[in-house]
């Protein structure tokens, strides 16, 4: 199917335009690599600095596994990771147990003043812990909850609940009423509808809340610092921060510890990136 008439010559020869495009793309690629280098810088620092002994670090030459080998004696890292894990797991469980029914209630089971109460809970998202730090600390201490993990777990749960209620309510609003009604006609009560219909449907939202809260709580310092009295129950982030602030621990050891502490959150993040993005833009993304 060839035409005899030659194609009309474009103003800029096609190959030159293509080349300009290729050059543009190449430059773009280089810029992106540059940004990647900046964003990977923390990991590079952690890795390189952790692979030195204290002397090597001070002199700036040489590598060794010394700080890794002595890591467990420098920082009680295993016990701290266990603490962090327990605190994260229990807090998230509590947030889900409290947030799921509430989100369902605000989205589908309107009751008297539910709109106002919902707004109040959502507003609590904006209250920084520091604003209520003193009364909170005194309350928790007076209740004797700073001994174990209870106090910290409660505070994390309270801080995480408003967002999870908001996210679940937003999610459930997208679920058609008929689905719940079909369950009611099929013989479910509201509790049954919640656990057998609503929760299974909400798996993506649950994943979002879990991932966001995991990173939040795992990475947090303030609550763990103040609401856990026993040093033997410290989560890893607090352990690192306290050692760092003390300025007596060797930097390579700190960096090795940092790397260990960063790993779980990074893995969770890389696997569940999708849910993280969804959660961040919930409400305005459509």
């Amino acid at each position: 199917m060839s035409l005899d008439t030659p194609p009309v010559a474009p103003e800029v020869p096609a190959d030159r335009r293509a080349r300009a495009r290729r050059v543009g793309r190449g430059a773009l690629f280089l810029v992106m690599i540059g940004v990647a280098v900046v964003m990977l810088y923390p990991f590079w620092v952690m890795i390189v600095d952790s692979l030195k002994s204290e002397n090597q670090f001070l002199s700036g030459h040489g590598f060794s596994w010394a700080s890794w080998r002595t890591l467990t004696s420098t920082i009680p890292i295993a016990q701290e990771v266990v603490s962090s894990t327990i605190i994260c797991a229990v807090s998230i469980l509590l947030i889900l147990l409290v947030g799921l029914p509430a989100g369902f209630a605000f989205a589908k089971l309107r009751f008297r003043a539910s709109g106002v109460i919902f707004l109040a809970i959502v507003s609590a998202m904006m209250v920084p812990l520091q604003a209520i730090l003193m009364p909170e600390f005194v309350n928790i201490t007076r209740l004797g909850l700073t001994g174990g993990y209870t106090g910290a777990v409660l505070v994390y749960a309270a801080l995480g609940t408003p967002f999870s209620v908001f996210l679940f309510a937003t999610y459930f609003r997208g679920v058609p009423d008929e689905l719940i009604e079909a369950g009611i006609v099929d013989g479910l009560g509201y509790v049954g509808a919640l656990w057998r219909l609503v929760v299974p449907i909400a798996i993506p939202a649950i994943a979002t809340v879990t991932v966001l809260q995991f990173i939040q709580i795992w990475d947090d310092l303030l609550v763990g610092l103040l609401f856990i009295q026993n040093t033997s129950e410290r989560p890893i982030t607090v352990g690192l921060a306290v050692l760092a602030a003390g300025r007596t621990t060797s930097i390579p050891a700190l960096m090795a510890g940092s790397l260990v502490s960063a790993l779980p959150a990074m893995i969770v993040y890389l696997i569940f990136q999708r849910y993280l993005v969804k959660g961040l833009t919930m409400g305005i993304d459509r």
Partner: protein
Amino acid sequence: MAEITFHGVTKVFAGNVTAVDNLDLHVADGEFMVLVGPSGCGKTTALRMLAGLEEISAGTLSIGGRVVNHVLPKDRDVAMVFQNYALYPHMTVAQNMGFALKIRGESKAEVERKVREAAAILRLGEYLDRRPRALSGGQRQRVAMGRAIVRSPQAFLMDEPLSNLDAQLRVEMRVEIARIQRLLGVATVYVTHDQIEAMTMGDRVAVMRGGQLQQVAPPQVLYDHPANEFVAGFMGSPPMNLVRARTSPSRGGVGLAVGDQRLDVPGAYGASHDLPREEGAEVVLGVRPEDIDVVGSDVSGPTLKTRVERREALGAEILVHLSVADAGAASSVAYDEDVAVSRPTMLVARMAPQARVEVGDVLMVRLNEERLHFFDGTRGVTLRRGGA
């Protein structure tokens, strides 16, 4: 299986909106009852009250002789098919269908047996392990039906179950649902806004408007003897021609003035109709498109001089839009959903495809006097003798 009775059932929503007004309706055991009407007519609310999803403001509602006003949905033993199917997305087809039975505590084997039976009726056998997401629209619709069937309930409640399907599938499922209902013989209340579904599926059809029941009758009766102007205009496509007219003296006794033409109505005082005797009373004349014939100018009876304004060839037939009276004056058609009167006077006639009719032709048409309808000019009710 059971009969269903609405007795003076009323629903008033917050803000004093009356959605259903004093509804009296009896659905016999095994009957297929279609509730039809324009959106907002209260048909869905009536169905939801029957399901127990909406509370009843006044009146009594009974299923199988048991008053169910305050019975919770799960204890009413009715199954509902929703417009959007409301399939549980996290369950397979089999789980969806067996869910109600499982809640009821039936044994696993029993549930499985009933699901297989229902699946066979609906030809869903090979899809039992799929999730709703992996089904086509028609298949989902069948699963929704299946969920209702397995329960062998006292009644099926269906809320516009076909409105989300494309046209071809809708025709198919219309037949299918009617077949299954007859096979199972379960009393069914079927809500739709589609008068074709109403005509083709129902044993009887209840027409609603503005929360009030207009007429309940078998489809053909509804078509041939509408109780009022609204029913006349709602059932049938294209709808019945409704023409404003005034009584006026005529050779045959009484006639009608339509525009500036006079129409003789020999059958006006026949067995069923009873036009007002005084002169100048306002009535609405109704005539179906198939009851208009082109005739010569010398024919007696109800004839009108018209002009062809538009011609729609549908293949099997032609719809001819005619303007009545001073057949030169331009006239516009305004179809008012609420009043269902076309004005100024336009008529739609259904003709055979071979009819030689062109736009601009002036035609004499004769209305089939046996099949004329007369409605009160203000209240819209059919004018008939003795309320027959």
